[in-house]
C-alpha cells in the first residue's frame, strides 16, 4: 500500500490556483522528510491540462478525474472521488487551501474519514515516533496551540491562500499520471442557480482580490477620489490606514492593519501616501504584489514593496488614470 500526502489542486477559470501551488510546496517539503509520495487530485471537466504544472510544483503522482458533471464544485461528488482513492492507499495528510470551496471540502473530508483537522496551521512537522505535531492559532491569534496527532491518523490541513508562498517551479521534474474513473458520480444535493459578481464598494476586505489603500499623504477626504478611478479600473477595493479611519474618511470596515484585527493577503495592495507603520505592515505584508506611491524614498513600506513610485501622489495618480484610459482606448480600437 502506497504512503501518500494528498493535495487538492484547485483550478478556477482555466487557471490553477496559486493557493494550490502553495499547498503542493508544503506537501513536497514534508514528503521529502517522511519519504512518501505527493499525490495531487485534479478534478473537473478539463482538468488534465494542469498535470504538467502540478508535477513541476512538487507532485509525484496526479489523479485526474475528468467529467462534464464535475464542471462545478459539488461536495457530494468530490467526497465520492476522494473516498474512492482512500481505500487504495495509506494517507498521512491531506492539504487543501482554505478557499471557499476548499474549506468546505476539507472539513467534510475530516468528518467523512473521522480524522484530525487543523485550520490555518502555522507549522506542521513529523516527529521521530512518526506522530505529527501541528501549530495552530487560537484565541483570535493571541496564542498558538501545539497539537499532536497519532501516526496512525490521517490529518486534513487547510491553510489560508497566500500564507506560505509558492516554492519554485522545477520543469524538469517527472511524475506519474493516473486517469481515474469518474463516470458514475453521485447526484449533487445542491443546485447552482447562478453567480453574483462582487461589487468593490460593498465586498469585505477579507474577500477582495485587489486593494487600493489611502494614507496620510492625502490632504483632504475629497482627494481620495483621485484613487477611485484607478481602483475601479483594477477592480480594487479602496481601504486605508488607521489615521484615515480616525479622521472619519474611511469606515472601520475598510481599515487595513493589525489594529483592525484583520490581516489581508490580496493579489495586489496599492499603498498611496502611506509610509508604513508597524501595525499597517503587519496587516498587509502577506500581499502578493505590493506597490507603493510615496514621496519619501526611505519610508518603511518602500523597502517592502515590489514596486515603489517615488513622487507626489497628486501628480502620479492623475498620470496613472490618464495612462489607464489611453491603454483602454487602444485596446478597444484593436
Amino acid at each position, binding site marked *: 500500500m502506497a504512503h501518500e500526502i494528498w493535495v487538492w489542486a484547485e483550478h478556477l477559470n482555466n487557471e490553477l490556483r496559486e493557493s494550490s501551488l502553495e499547498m503542493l510546496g508544503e506537501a513536497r517539503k514534508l514528503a521529502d522528510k517522511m519519504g512518501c509520495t505527493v499525490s495531487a487530485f485534479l478534478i473537473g471537466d478539463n482538468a488534465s491540462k494542469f498535470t504538467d504544472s502540478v508535477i513541476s510544483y512538487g507532485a509525484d503522482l496526479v489523479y485526474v478525474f475528468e467529467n462534464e458533471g464535475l464542471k462545478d464544485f459539488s461536495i457530494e461528488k468530490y467526497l465520492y472521488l476522494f473516498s474512492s482513492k482512500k481505500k487504495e492507499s495509506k494517507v498521512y495528510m491531506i492539504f487543501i487551501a482554505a478557499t471557499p470551496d476548499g474549506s468546505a471540502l476539507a472539513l467534510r473530508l475530516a468528518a467523512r474519514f473521522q480524522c484530525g483537522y487543523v485550520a490555518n496551521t502555522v507549522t506542521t512537522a513529523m516527529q521521530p515516533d512518526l506522530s505529527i505535531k501541528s501549530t495552530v492559532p487560537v*484565541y483570535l491569534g493571541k496564542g498558538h496551540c501545539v497539537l499532536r496527532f497519532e501516526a496512525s491518523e490521517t490529518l486534513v490541513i487547510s491553510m489560508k491562500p497566500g500564507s506560505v508562498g509558492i516554492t519554485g517551479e522545477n520543469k524538469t521534474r517527472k511524475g506519474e499520471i493516473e486517469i481515474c474513473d469518474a463516470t458514475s458520480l453521485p447526484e449533487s*444535493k445542491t443546485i447552482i442557480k447562478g453567480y453574483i459578481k462582487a461589487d468593490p464598494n460593498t465586498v469585505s476586505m477579507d474577500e477582495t482580490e485587489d486593494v487600493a489603500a489611502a494614507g496620510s499623504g492625502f490632504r483632504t477626504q475629497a482627494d481620495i477620489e483621485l484613487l477611485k478611478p484607478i481602483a475601479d479600473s483594477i477592480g480594487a477595493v479602496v481601504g486605508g490606514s488607521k489615521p484615515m479611519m480616525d479622521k472619519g474618511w474611511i469606515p472601520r470596515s475598510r481599515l487595513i492593519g493589525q489594529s483592525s484585527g484583520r490581516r489581508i493577503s490580496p493579489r495586489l495592495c496599492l499603498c498611496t501616501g502611506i509610509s508604513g507603520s508597524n501595525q499597517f505592515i503587519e496587516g498587509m505584508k502577506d500581499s502578493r504584489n505590493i506597490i507603493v506611491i510615496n514621496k519619501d524614498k526611505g519610508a518603511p513600506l518602500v523597502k517592502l514593496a515590489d514596486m515603489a513610485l517615488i513622487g507626489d501622489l497628486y501628480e502620479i495618480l492623475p498620470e496613472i488614470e490618464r495612462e489607464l484610459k489611453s491603454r483602454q482606448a487602444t*485596446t478597444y480600437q484593436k
Partner: protein
Amino acid sequence: MQIIVCVKSELDATGPIKLIEPVDKINTKDLVQTINPADHAALTLVRNSIPHDMGMITVITVSPASAEKILRICLASGADNAVRVWDESLKEENLNAKSVASLLHKAIQLLKADLVVCGSEGLCETSGYIGPALAELLDAAQICRVDHMEVSDDKQSILFHRKHNYGNREVITCLKPAVITVDYDAAKPPAVSMKESIKASKVPIMHLDLESLGCKEDEWTHNANANVLQYMPPRPRTKKIKQASDKPLTPQQKMQQMLGGGAAKQSSNIIEGDSKKAAKEFVDFLIAERILNF
C-alpha cells in the same frame, strides 16, 4: 419548516489575554462567557430571512446549565424555542467536537429538522467542524459560508447566497434536509430591548439528557484526534518569497530571515522622477502580473 440553530457558549477572546511564555493551559479567568458571534449571526440571518409563519426556529446547545443565559439571549434575539442537551455523566473537558456533533445529531433527529444552521467558526478555536460533521451524519446537503437567504415566492424552497471566490456570490438552492454555515459578519444581531429580555426569561427551556435522546455511550464517546501539548506566544509563519535574483543570501540576510519569520522582501523596482514614466511602469507591472488584461 423546522429550523434548528446550533449555538455555543464561548470565552470572549477579545478580552484581556496575553501569552508571554509557553504554558500547558491558558489562564482564561479574566475572560467572560459569550455567545459565539458566528452562531449569533446565523440566528439573526435566519430570523430576518424566514417569515414567522413559515418556520419555527429552535436554538440548541450542548452545555451545562450555566449556558442557559446564552439560550435566553437567543430567545430574546428571535428564536422561538430553546433546547439544552446535557447529562450528569458528561464532562465538559472530555467533550470533543466529534462527541458534540454526535449528540447534536441525535437531538436533531428527535426534533426532525428541515434546516440546520451553524456558525462557520468558533471564537477561540477556528475549526468550524460541527456544521460539516452534522451534514455527514444526517446525510444532508451542505452549504458553507452563507451570507444571504431568501424564500421563494411559492414558499417551497430557499435560495442561499454563498461566499464564492474573490467576493463573488454563488446563488444556490438545495434539497431538504440541509446544513448551512454562516460567517460572523453575515448579519448584525439586534439590540435586544428590556421587554424582549423579560419575555425570553419566561420561556421554558427544554432539557434533553442521554436517556431522552436514546443515546448509548458508544454513540457519543469518540477519542479526540489530537492531544494539546502546549500553548505558546504567537510566532510568525515562515513564508517563501521569490528571490529577485539568483544570488545566495549573505549570513546577515539569513539571520534577518530567521528572526523575521521569513525572507524579507527587497524592493527591486524603485522609480523616481518623471510621473509619466512612473505611470507607464505601473500599468506595465499590472499587465505583467496579469492583474490588468489589456
